[in-house]
């Protein structure tokens, strides 16, 4: 799907909002820490050729049906967005004449969207019944439809707009990328990383991937370098390509408390639809800050209830009537 100008403006507006809201939170809980065994992905937009092999592999690995966008002739799988049928989508940013890849003005770039597997996920904090959980070791955010009540608070709260619900199914469920945890359990690599021909989607341990991303930022643009494919440190032969001119930042290292999916790009990240100017802590740290202040050990509510019970009982006694039948001191007042 094309990231058009309107999306871009919206994303910028959202970013501005983030900037305004970012530095003011009166209460906050401790930010969550990345598990030392966390696994993740490095998506390098400059390596992506937009072949969508990852989308096809994702559908196959997760048994998802094809999806046809809008008014198009149903010829092949053409989702525009992640949805109840699509967990992973390649998008296109284009500007002006769009005649050079990885250029902001008059250029274009690819973008891959799916669950970011946040270090401090909003969906996990929001879910009332633990239907979204974060694996304490791998850090993968998984969904459990067997207990989900379908309130869609995860959909509403996700800062990356990832969990989706099946609105056209009377027994619909929430769908999102679970990083092929079923394949990882067999020692395999997530399908999208496994099939990527250029190594644009690279699987690995998060701290290794962070190092790899930093290494790429040090490269001399134009130098022919080898990019690993599949799994970082795995057996696949690498992909040779000239080093691009990266934006000097790794998206996901600190944004919203960090994500296990990292992004490198040659165009600014907001062009790719990622929220920028966001706080360095996840939003759950801010909302749970409020909740923990008010409800820790239920101490304040308990004290409040004790106080209320005392005052209410005293007032009822003092008024000389039982709690409901008042003596109606005012019943004779004028009635219009």
């Amino acid at each position, binding site marked *: 799907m094309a990231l058009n100008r309107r999306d871009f403006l919206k994303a910028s507006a959202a970013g501005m909002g983030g900037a305004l809201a970012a530095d003011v939170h009166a209460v906050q809980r401790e930010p969550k820490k990345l598990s030392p065994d966390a696994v993740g992905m490095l998506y390098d937009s400059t390596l992506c050729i937009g072949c969508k092999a990852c989308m096809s592999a994702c559908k196959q690995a997760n048994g998802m049906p094809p999806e046809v966008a809008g008014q198009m002739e149903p010829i092949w799988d053409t989702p525009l*967005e992640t949805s109840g049928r699509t967990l992973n989508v390649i998008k296109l940013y284009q500007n002006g004449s769009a005649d050079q890849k990885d250029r902001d003005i008059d250029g274009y770039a690819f973008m891959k969207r799916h669950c970011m597997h946040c270090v401090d996920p909003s969906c996990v904090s929001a879910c009332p019944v633990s239907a979204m959980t974060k694996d304490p070791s791998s850090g993968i955010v998984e969904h459990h439809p067997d207990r989900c009540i379908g309130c869609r608070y995860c959909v509403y709260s996700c800062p990356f707009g990832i969990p989706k619900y099946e609105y056209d199914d009377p*027994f619909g469920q929430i769908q999102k990328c679970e990083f092929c945890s079923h394949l990882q359990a067999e020692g395999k690599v997530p399908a999208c990383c496994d099939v990527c021909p250029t190594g644009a989607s690279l699987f690995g341990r998060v701290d290794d991937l962070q190092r790899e991303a930093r290494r790429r930022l040090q490269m001399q643009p134009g130098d022919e370098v080898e990019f690993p494919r599949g799994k970082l440190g795995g057996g696949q032969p690498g992909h040779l390509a000239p080093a691009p001119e990266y934006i000097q930042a790794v998206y996901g290292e600190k944004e919203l408390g960090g994500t296990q999916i990292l992004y490198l790009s040659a165009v600014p990240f907001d062009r790719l639809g990622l929220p920028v100017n966001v706080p360095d802590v996840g939003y759950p740290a*801010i909302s749970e800050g409020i909740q923990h202040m008010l409800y820790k050990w239920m101490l304040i*509510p308990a004290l409040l209830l004790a106080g209320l019970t005392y005052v*209410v009982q005293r007032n009822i006694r003092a008024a000389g009537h039982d709690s409901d*039948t008042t003596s109606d*001191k*005012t019943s004779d007042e*004028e009635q*219009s």
Partner: protein
Amino acid sequence: MSGHAPIAGRLLTKPFIVLALLFMLAVAILLARFIFGLGAVTNINDGYPWGIWIVIDVMIGTAIGCAGYAVALLVYLFNRGEYHPLIRSALMAGLFGYTLAGIAVIFDLGRYWQFYTLLLPWYVQLNSVMLEVAWCVMAYVVVLWIEFTPTFLERLGWHNIREKLSKVLFFFIALGILLPTMHQSSLGTMAVVAGHQISPLWQTQMLPALFLISALLMGYAIVPFEAILAALGLHQPLETPLLAKISAVALAVALFFLALRFGDLIWRDALGLALAGDIQALMFWVESALFIVPVLLLATRTMRTNPRLIFLAAISLLLAGSLYRINTYIIGYQPTAGATWSYFPSVTEIMVTVGIFALEVMLYLLFVKYLPVLHGAAAPPRART
């Protein structure tokens, strides 16, 4: 006796039949929702997963239901016995608002048949604001029915049980003050985790305080609103001095809300967005005007004795609190997904909301006609109403 009495009269009047038809239409639409899915009758989507069934039926429905909470606060906490004549009709507004909101949630839940997992200790997620709201609302519905039980017992003439209940009722009254304080504020906290997706015009850590105060405000507005409608439609006596007093309370709460709301906007340096000239800025000003107009209408003591002004101010406050909720959760919300999502409720979606409110009015008519709810009630002068 309590001075509360049923007003009697025929139930099946023309307005009642219209309400019943609206309700039946909603039932038919809901049937389609359960057969074909949420997408078949609503316009909610992956960008805007929450529509009016959540924001109006549940959030605004319970805020209107805060009448019982707001009056109980005056009578039992601040020991203002003079407001006692209002307590039963206020509690009844709460009873309907909350019970129907609790039922309406089921229509919106995508996996309603697993609703019970909210009560299973091995599934509950204690950090979830939604969980706190769900538990508190469920508990408060039970408390409201207990608080309202004396009215049934009086009607049945079971004075013995009524006496016994009266001895423990103070505890439920205390709970009935605590629980709305908790969940009405949490309904605001619930938006905090949405972060940058909600415009800084509404997104703030003050949301719990602002939601709580505006819910109270709506509670104080629904009392005169309902009393004046009952006077007009059901030919009930109007207790103007009492309504003047409660309007003064509403005025004070409205001023407090406005001070907190604008103080917060200025402190966060977010007020500039109100000049952005977009739909969010426009709706911000409409919302703010609806909060400010009642302050002007109720400004002086003389104005507060004018039922017409009291009524207009109450309507404005109810709209203000409602729009504040719609703005926070829908209009101020822009999903980051990067897609061009939009949301406006479908006709069928709106008709379900209308049907639920129709049921609320039907229940009101049923209760005031057959139960001792209204204070100083008088039989209608004419045979039909």
